[in-house]
């Protein structure tokens, strides 16, 4: 209990302290407060992974009723992920924000909301009272909004922030609906009442309730078609904020879905199918659009959507296992989903941080303006490469491990299935493979164009590697990426408690899960080790053979042409052109071009911008309808003060009169009914 009090006290103290400090002091207090809070919550989280269940009760208030904090293994897993990314992210942020040192007040606000965001995210994992949960959710949404619009001088940033704000309030609307529904029926705000309510009411109730929460949390997580805020908010935010947002904030949506799976009792077979459908579409659509992006951070944002899809596939398989009573299938699916949650937060935050390094060095994230950065920033390039391989799901790094578990889940589900599920499986596998292939295309493009080749543009300033202390947290993340890839068993063992909880195994002692997955993963690890050994052996042999030979350095083979310029290199657009031609029906891109013509040609130009088809039809067209509807009432807003006073008077009069005439109105309605 004292730990919980300390957890609340630390951020409050830090927030009170920050406005009175110098810029450097703000950073140190921010980092210290996050570390202290991470230690406190991480301590509790670790205990739960060891099999404990922590419950704290607070009396609460008249409105909320008693407030219960329950930290189970699922909360523990997410708390640990959030803490790790926040520690590395805030440490990275200390150096990233140096460029903005002059904006003192802005930095104060930024530090405060960063601490708030961390506290809110951790609390969301523990709070089990609907009202308090919603308030915390709102704190998280607002603090993230302020963190995103750090550079609010830019119009695009502000728009992205507004876009995010509106989306997160649509999300909260669905959550509120779900929670109020349960509270109305049971009279309690405690999360346990969701279980009681859904287990008493069979049939569609639980399903509709689940879907309601799924949409609410899905908007936060970024499932297609609720993803439309993600590609704007991530690029607009500073690098450490986008890393943290993409790494852990969208995962709180995933956490919510997991939490609801533990609470709601319903037909999980249908739920699983629904989740898999959404996930397959998210995964494919996310990566398909990611390839078309020319903005490095936007590209990464679309990849978050893709990875949410992969996580969702894991959750879907798990739900199917729950629905059919197949514990092994359930544990495979949930383990894959949970592990991929961790993996994605690692490599995605690493990618955003390295993109931040690139931005810091070159002041642009436009892929086609970059090139050859590997010579100027070798360490950043190496880190980006590690994360790029990991996110493409390729061994020997961590992305492969979780995708392997999800594949195993699909193939395991195949045994003894009927034709309907079989079709789902085969198309999901098809989607997962395509996602892998497209991710490879996308990240070879991103890495190849940004870091390799020759610089495509001359910069006025010197492009140089960022300081070692700024790279330190990045190395830490990269180490973990490699570590999970090489020793996945450790993490699978840590996962056994959360998976138990989700798969609803009868007793803790009944553990089919760890043995089966170690059995499953042990040889994969051997394969990875063998591969590393073989590579090292070949590398050593190569060194041995070639060390006495002199390697000469010549220009790149230019097919006989000896004066190539950097502009002749393949660009991001040309690299993906065969792809974009094939996938044209799914994509939407605007092209503006000026042909080179005439005897004395003037300059030509060619420009493409890709847009989101779902956004166009689902968001933009709705907004257009909404606008035209509201446009009809524009006459009310005529700018004349007399009218506005009149509206005020009408409002006050009606507020006073309606209760007075209440009986008459009721009478009138009754009269109409009789007719």
């Amino acid at each position: 209990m004292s730990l919980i009090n300390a957890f609340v006290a630390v951020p409050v103290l830090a927030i009170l302290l920050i406005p009175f400090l110098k810029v450097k002091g703000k950073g140190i207090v921010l980092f210290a407060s996050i570390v202290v809070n991470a230690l406190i919550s991480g301590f509790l989280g670790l205990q739960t992974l060891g099999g404990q269940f922590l419950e704290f009760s607070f009396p609460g208030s008249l409105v909320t009723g008693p407030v219960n904090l329950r930290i189970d293994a699922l909360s523990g897993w997410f708390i640990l992920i959030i803490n790790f990314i926040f520690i590395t992210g805030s440490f990275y942020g200390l150096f990233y924000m140096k460029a903005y040192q002059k904006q003192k007040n802005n930095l104060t606000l930024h530090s405060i909301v960063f601490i708030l965001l961390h506290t809110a995210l951790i609390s969301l994992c523990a709070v089990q009272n609907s009202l308090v949960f919603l308030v915390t959710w709102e704190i998280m949404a607002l603090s993230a909004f302020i963190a995103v619009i750090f550079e609010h001088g830019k119009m695009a940033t502000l728009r992205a922030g507004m876009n995010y704000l509106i989306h997160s309030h649509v999300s909260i609307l669905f959550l509120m609906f779900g929670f109020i529904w349960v509270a109305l029926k049971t009279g309690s705000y405690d999360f346990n009442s969701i279980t009681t309510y859904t287990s008493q009411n069979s049939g569609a109730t639980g399903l509709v309730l689940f879907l309601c929460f799924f949409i609410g949390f899905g908007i936060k997580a970024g499932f297609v078609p609720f993803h439309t805020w993600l590609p704007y908010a991530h690029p607009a935010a500073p690098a450490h904020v986008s890393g943290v947002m993409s790494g852990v904030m969208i995962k709180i949506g995933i956490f919510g879905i997991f939490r609801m799976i533990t609470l709601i009792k319903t037909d999980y077979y249908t739920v699983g199918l629904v989740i898999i459908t959404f996930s397959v579409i998210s995964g494919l659509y996310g990566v398909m659009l990611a390839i078309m992006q020319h903005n490095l951070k936007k590209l990464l944002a679309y990849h978050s959507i893709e990875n949410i899809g992969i996580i969702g596939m894991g959750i879907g398989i798990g739900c199917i296992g729950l629905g059919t009573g197949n514990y092994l299938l359930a544990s495979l699916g949930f383990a894959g989903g949970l592990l991929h949650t961790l993996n994605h937060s690692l490599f995605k935050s690493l990618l955003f941080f390295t993109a931040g390094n690139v931005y810091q060095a070159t002041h642009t994230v436009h892929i086609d303006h970059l090139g050859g950065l590997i010579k100027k920033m070798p360490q950043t390039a190496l880190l980006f490469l590690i994360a790029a391989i990991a996110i493409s799901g390729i061994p020997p790094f961590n992305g492969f491990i979780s995708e392997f578990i999800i594949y195993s889940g699909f193939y395991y589900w195949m045994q003894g299935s009927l034709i309907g599920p079989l079709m789902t499986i085969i198309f999901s596998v098809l989607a997962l493979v395509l996602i892998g292939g497209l991710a490879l295309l996308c990240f070879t493009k991103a890495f190849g164009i940004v870091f390799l080749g020759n610089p495509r543009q001359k910069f006025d300033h010197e492009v140089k590697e960022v300081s070692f202390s700024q790279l330190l947290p990045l190395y830490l993340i990269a180490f973990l990426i490699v570590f999970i890839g090489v020793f996945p068993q450790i993490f699978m063992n840590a996962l056994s408690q959360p998976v138990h909880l989700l798969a609803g195994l009868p007793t803790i002692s009944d553990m089919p899960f760890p043995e089966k997955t170690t059995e499953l993963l042990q040889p994969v690890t051997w394969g990875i080790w063998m591969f590393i050994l073989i590579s090292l052996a070949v590398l050593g042999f190569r060194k041995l053979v070639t060390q006495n030979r002199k390697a000469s350095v010549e220009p790149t083979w230019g097919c006989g042409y000896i004066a190539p310029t950097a502009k002749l290199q393949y660009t991001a657009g040309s690299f993906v052109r065969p792809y974009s031609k094939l996938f044209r029906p799914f994509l939407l891109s605007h092209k503006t071009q000026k042909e080179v013509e005439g005897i004395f040609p003037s300059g030509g130009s060619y420009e493409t911008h890709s847009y989101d088809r779902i956004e166009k039809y689902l968001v933009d067209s709705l907004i257009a309808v909404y606008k035209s509807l509201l446009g009809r009432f524009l006459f009310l807003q005529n700018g004349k003060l007399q009218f506005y006073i009149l509206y005020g008077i009408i409002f006050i009069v009606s507020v006073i009169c309606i209760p007075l005439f209440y009986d008459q109105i009721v009478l009138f309605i009754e009269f109409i009914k009789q007719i």
Partner: protein
Amino acid sequence: MLSLILILIAAAFFTGVIVRVKSMASGRKGPGILQPLFDVFRLFKKGVVYSETTSFVFQIAPTIYFSSVVMAMLVVPFGQSKGILSFDGDFIFFAYILALGKFFSIISAMDTGSSFEGMGASREALYSMFAEPAFFILMGSLALLTGHTNFQEMFSALHIGSYISYALAILGTFVLMMIAMVENSRMPIDDPKTHLELTMVHEVMILDNSGFDLGLILTAGYLKFAIYGALVVNLFIGVFPLQYSIPMFFVIQFVLASGVGFIESFMARFRMSHNAQFIFVLTSVSLLIFFGALLILGKFV
């Protein structure tokens, strides 16, 4: 272990047979069967030229590409005898470790900053993406049919059923061979003997590689052919004892190699812009296999 030795032997001859068949079909005598091996040995002895644009990626990429192919080779079984490494889901590992090699060969091509090599890299990335679903669905169908999820158990359980499973095996052969063509950039997808950089895929990506590194890349190519050949052989030899299956292995590998040679002698390369669609057709063929598997199991109600 057995499969490793057999694949190594087959790899030594496979490309030589292709070259020999091609030269005989065009009325020449042609080089000896082992000439590709001698080429590699010669390359291993040579010095190396690096482009001034390149970085460390270009230097380690051939090694990783080669190692990934070697690693993939280690999980391929031979009939009843397992590969060096055999586990549930090893075919996923097989495909993904090859993808690692591809990732590095693509970025090493982009490391040179040459527009030709960028073009090759772009095509390679697209084609390999399209070829992969076919492989996974093929393996999925075999997993469904046999109830196992590793190479060795799938292949040895494949023959318990009816003759229809052999029909599926023939379709499977087609899919695997076409994937091998895509992976190795041979005819109808890519013409290894073309003399125009604009029409190359794989060859253009390694324009700047030389010496030891080029030798590694070529060796990896030979191995890849034999690996896919071995997978095809595995579709047929499951239950036969070794005295029949080992000769069958070499016969089938030889037939495949000469088949490739004949195709390259008498066919033209497909239009580059239609390649992707063509490769995706493989996925529908493998879906056909999947439906065949459903049919055998009586899942169509």
